[in-house]
């Protein structure tokens, strides 16, 4: 068992490295195909008045006229030695730029995830125990509603309502606790929808099981039944979904940050993407790949702890025995 785990972990690690390198190369190719780069676009600012010949001369002086494969090789060598290089846009070290904005995104993403989990748990609880006449059916429609309202719309409504109208937070101070709270709501709502969908489906399944009937027969109240008996078996596929929503959180934080004016990874990506700042984009995409791969790896490793029935079978992939097959199949980005 332990050896199987090690082999499994090693294989996943190699796959992870391949994914990250591929992400790096792909970003390079995609961005290189696009016309323009931050250096020439600064030179082409009409205020500058440089002629085309002067621009070419300056570009050549910085080695930007070299063939793309040569540039890719140079940058890949630097990347492999841990040197992320300098931003073409700002001329500052990419590592510094990321370190500057990472904390803000981590705070927002974790707060968003917390909001999403709380909301999902509340929806799950309500879907089981809210009396029908108080709108249980209506509540069950919430995940679909949450999923179909883009988070920037939620963000804008929150800003106008709570920022400008009620003055609960200062729009110009987006890193304050209050502003972060509202940003986390905007980010957490759509994310909660996916978690709630899966949670509700599983709660429905579990509450029909005999053990649930027995527990109810023993006179257990709804909260105890929910927390002590239903939640744990229902949360196994939810772990997979949470791991997948990390992508949603990263992507969503990009938009939420822009809407709320926070300076995080999202705004860094946005600035770099609009100016085609290759080194920064490569670093951020690789970072996102690392996060995504790691989180999914952790999710897979957490399975056996939640469900002792999960066994590592021949192909070293964890499979929750008896659990929904489709949930297991979407268990991570590294499924070959």
């Amino acid at each position, binding site marked *: 068992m332990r050896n199987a785990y090690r082999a499994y972990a090693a294989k996943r690690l190699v796959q992870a490295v391949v994914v990250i390198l591929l992400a790096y190369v792909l970003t390079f190719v995609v961005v290189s195909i696009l016309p323009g780069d931050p250096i020439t676009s600064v030179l082409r600012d009409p*205020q*500058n008045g440089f002629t085309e010949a002067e621009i070419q001369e300056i570009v050549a002086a910085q080695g930007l006229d070299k063939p793309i494969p040569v540039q890719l090789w140079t940058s890949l060598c630097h990347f492999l030695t841990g040197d992320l290089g300098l931003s073409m846009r700002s001329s500052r070290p990419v590592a510094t730029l990321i370190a500057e904005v990472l904390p803000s995104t981590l705070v927002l993403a974790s707060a968003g995830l917390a909001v999403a989990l709380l909301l999902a748990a509340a929806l799950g609880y309500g879907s089981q125990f809210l009396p029908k006449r108080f709108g249980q059916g209506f509540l069950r429609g919430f995940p679909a509603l949450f999923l179909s309202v883009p988070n920037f719309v939620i963000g804008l409504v929150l800003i106008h309502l709570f920022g400008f109208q009620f003055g609960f937070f200062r*729009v110009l101070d987006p890193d304050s606790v209050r502003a972060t709270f509202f940003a986390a709501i905007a980010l957490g709502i759509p994310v909660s929808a996916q978690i709630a969908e899966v949670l509700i489906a599983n709660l429905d399944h579990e509450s029909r099981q005999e053990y649930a009937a027995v527990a109810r027969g023993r006179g257990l109240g709804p909260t105890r039944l929910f927390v002590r008996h239903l939640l744990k078996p229902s949360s196994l596929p939810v772990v997979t979904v949470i791991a997948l929503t990390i992508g949603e959180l990263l992507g969503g934080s990009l938009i939420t940050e822009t809407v709320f004016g926070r300076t995080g990874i999202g705004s860094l990506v946005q*600035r770099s993407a609009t100016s085609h700042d290759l080194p920064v984009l490569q670093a951020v995409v690789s970072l996102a790949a690392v996060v995504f791969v790691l989180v999914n790896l952790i999710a897979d490793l957490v399975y056996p702890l939640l469900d002792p029935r999960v066994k590592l079978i021949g192909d070293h992939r964890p499979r929750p025995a008896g659990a929904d097959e489709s949930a297991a199949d979407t268990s991570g980005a590294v499924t070959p």
Partner: protein
Amino acid sequence: MTERLSPPSLSRRHLLIATPAAATAALATTAGLRPARGAGSPNDGGDITFLIDSLGGTWIPNNSAISSFQGHIWGHVTDKLIYVDADGKISPWIAERWEQNDTATAFTLHLKQGVTFSDGTPLDAPAVVANLDIWYAGRRNEGINPIGLFPKTYDHAEAVDAATVKVFFKVPTLGFIPTLGYHGSILISPKTIARPAARQANLGKTSGSGPYLVDSWKEGDFVRLVRRKDYNWGPPAVGHTGPAFLDSITYKLVAEQSLRVSAVQSGQADIGYSPPPLELQSLKEAGFTVATPRYLGFVNGWAINTKLAPFDDVRVRQALQAAINRQEIIDTVYTPDWKLAESFIQSNVPGATDHRELLAYDPARAEKLLDAAGWTKGAGGIRWKDGKPLSLTLHANPYLATSKAVGELSAQQLGRIGWKVAIRAYDVVTFGEKVRFNSPTVPAYEVTRSFIDAGTVASILTDANNGEDWFGLGESDPKINELRDRIAGAGSARVRDPLLDELQKYVLEQGYFIPLTQIVQRIYVQNPKLKGEVYNGIAYASYYTATKSTA
């Protein structure tokens, strides 16, 4: 993930445009209608927040000084040798006086003494020489660009003594002194200049001699400036030379246009940059200060590529000149704060002359010219010649927010006389790659460029001396060549002014340049409690002299 990048800003804008009605109602009761107090004695202290749409890319001084955004910060952190006011009048600043030889090839600058950079280095003659050298040449292999409009005729400079600099040029360069007041010509500590590019890019470590210091900053987020207490060398022209009054200025990036305006309306910020022109009237009525300073430079208009048919025909260009209704552009897209173009350079530039009669709206004349040129009206009212429609592709200039709207209106005006107009809009990066002066796919390049000295026009007319050749003329127009050489070689404004007048008349008559309106690229909406700011020749606001009442 990339698919989700673009929609938010669009939809957000729509939503934000829809919501201000409610917001305005709430705001009217707070900041908006509070009457401004009469100015008493300037009160020291106070902090202001300036909301800006971008904070640019790099902070390497040479590469960012001319930025429409970063120029605001540099204007407070650094000084210049010369001050140029909104009317193009030049006056002493760090250079207390100057002399030039008869041929305008050698200049002597006498510097103010006792001036220091914030790192303690004296701002003396060697420091000025170091700045002149890097403005001219940059350090290209390091990624430090030369200053775009610094005279390319520069030869060298030498420090005669601690307070005297002699500057030499290869040919007459009358524009040198005014250029010292241009936004690119900011004085930076030689210690900063000596650093490699990656370290120059750290704004927090850059030292200027200006009235404010960088207190803290975060890329893509904000720059906070605090007052330098021992500052004592402001430009006499602004009426104050001691330390600034306001304690701090925070430039905060808020990319969304309507959010910047709402924040000023709700009192959360003091200045909003680039509000929508059509909102200015209602902002004014609500009691906010609105400023639409014009910079010195070219007017907003099209440089026509004469290499491309049908614009190789002077009659077609003249028809274009007569078919644009400039007053309608101001009435529809702008407000009365915008002024009619009188020439192809802004009317506040010394040397600009009034040629409005050449820019009159005369559709009948335009039709007559096109008829004479063989363009006859066909189906759908479009004119044809030799099986080709009379077409024009405009490329909206992303550096001017109203460019697309102006293009659309011009397209309607031209459509009435049989022109088929297409408009393309690109982002800044793609625009820079695809849209250039006299490129084979660009019949009309929309100009937005400031300059300090009217002599600059000599460098855009042809391709001689590394010129930009805006009209694709090369050396083909002898009259332009002659005017170019005589303007570039003029040793005094007295000689040059009549030549400039002749040039303006000729360029407009020939339809080389089609002016649209005088350009206002920098628009400000401001809390009425903030007063006393000054706009310089490049339309940047300086809060060095500003005060904010607490009442």
